[in-house]
């Protein structure tokens, strides 16, 4: 027999089999399924924590925007003769990031809404034939008169703007307080 005293019987190609990374990538299938299970549980735990945290962040942003960011000063958005009956005009109010839609339903009858669908914030479109606002994403339907949700996934009404007509101009001033 050859002299094998210099050979380390525990030597493996990747060195020490008890190293840290080897615990995460074990060779034994039992330990491997434990590692897989542990990773999956870790994923579930961290994801649910992220969701909870995200919910609070979203809520805080909404509250912050409501109490601080909203200016409700009156603004003229269109001339009275600018829109035909059954027509509409898009504008932004109160900031450049808030798309809104102004509808002319009758001679002196205007309504205005935030254009974001209350479901997943797709922009809603005006269907003057039906007198409804239609969200094309999931076929949500809103009333053009008061923004109530009529059909489809949305449950909440659109955000309604206060509209006034004077001096041959259409003015908007703040959002209507929504009552549930």
């Amino acid at each position, binding site marked *: *027999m*050859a002299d*094998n005293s210099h*050979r*380390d*019987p525990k*030597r*493996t*190609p*990747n060195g020490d*089999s008890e190293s840290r990374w080897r615990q995460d*990538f074990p*060779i*034994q*299938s*039992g330990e*491997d399924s434990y590692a897989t299970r542990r990773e999956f549980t870790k994923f579930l735990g961290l994801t649910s924590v992220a969701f909870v945290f995200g919910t609070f962040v979203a809520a805080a942003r909404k509250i912050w925007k409501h109490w601080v960011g909203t200016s409700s000063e009156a603004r003229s958005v269109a001339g009275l003769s600018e829109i035909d009956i059954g027509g509409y005009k898009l504008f932004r109010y109160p900031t450049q990031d808030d798309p809104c839609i102004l509808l002319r339903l009758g001679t002196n009858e205007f309504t205005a809404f935030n254009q974001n669908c209350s479901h997943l914030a797709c922009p809603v479109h005006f269907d003057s034939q039906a007198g409804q606002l239609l969200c094309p994403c999931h076929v949500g339907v809103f009333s053009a008169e008061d923004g109530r949700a009529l059909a489809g996934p949305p449950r909440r009404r659109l955000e309604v703007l206060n509209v006034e007509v004077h001096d041959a101009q259409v003015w908007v001033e703040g959002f209507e307080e929504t009552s549930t």
Partner: protein
Amino acid sequence: MDEFEFFIDPSRCIGCEACKHACMECDTHRGRSMIHLEFVDRAISTQTSPVVCMHCEDPTCAQVCPADAIKQTEDGIVQTSTKARCIGCSNCVLACPFGVPQYVTDIDQIVKCDMCYDRTSIGKKPMCATVCPSQALYYGTRDELVKMRRETPVNDFVFGQQRVRTKVNLMSAPDAQELDFDIMNFMPDTEAEPDIYADDLGVWTESNGR
């Protein structure tokens, strides 16, 4: 000693490939053989040797796998690569000291013998051992085998700096304790004859004196 063990005696192999075809015919192997025959030295001999997995205690193939695809079960069987994990890098093909894993191009995955885990785990014999006509592949108890053979089962191998203990036994000389392999034993004898391959490649050897 009622435990069933696997014994390989390459000197009994007659090259009939019955083991390979039995392996292909096993339902769970889907027409693909997980073992193969190797010619010992094709230039001078027709002697073949069946290559089934030796199921090392510390499997080199699993050690080198970068995708974590080869696993060893509690009973010491080294499984074939997991379809979902194997990336076909062939690290195991290069690393295995016995030349067991093979890369299969059409599934882009390596395939190796798992000692018919679906059969042996419920007490059946592996496909290859049941069909081998010369019992080069033998699956049975050690007592049974010792009565029939004069060779000694060896499961301790030394490859250069690496010592490998296996679950599967290789039948060897009666007094053998371990088998020692050195890469130099397999190199061409440059002093006995000029190395024609080295000449073609323009490589310096002692014989061509470049």
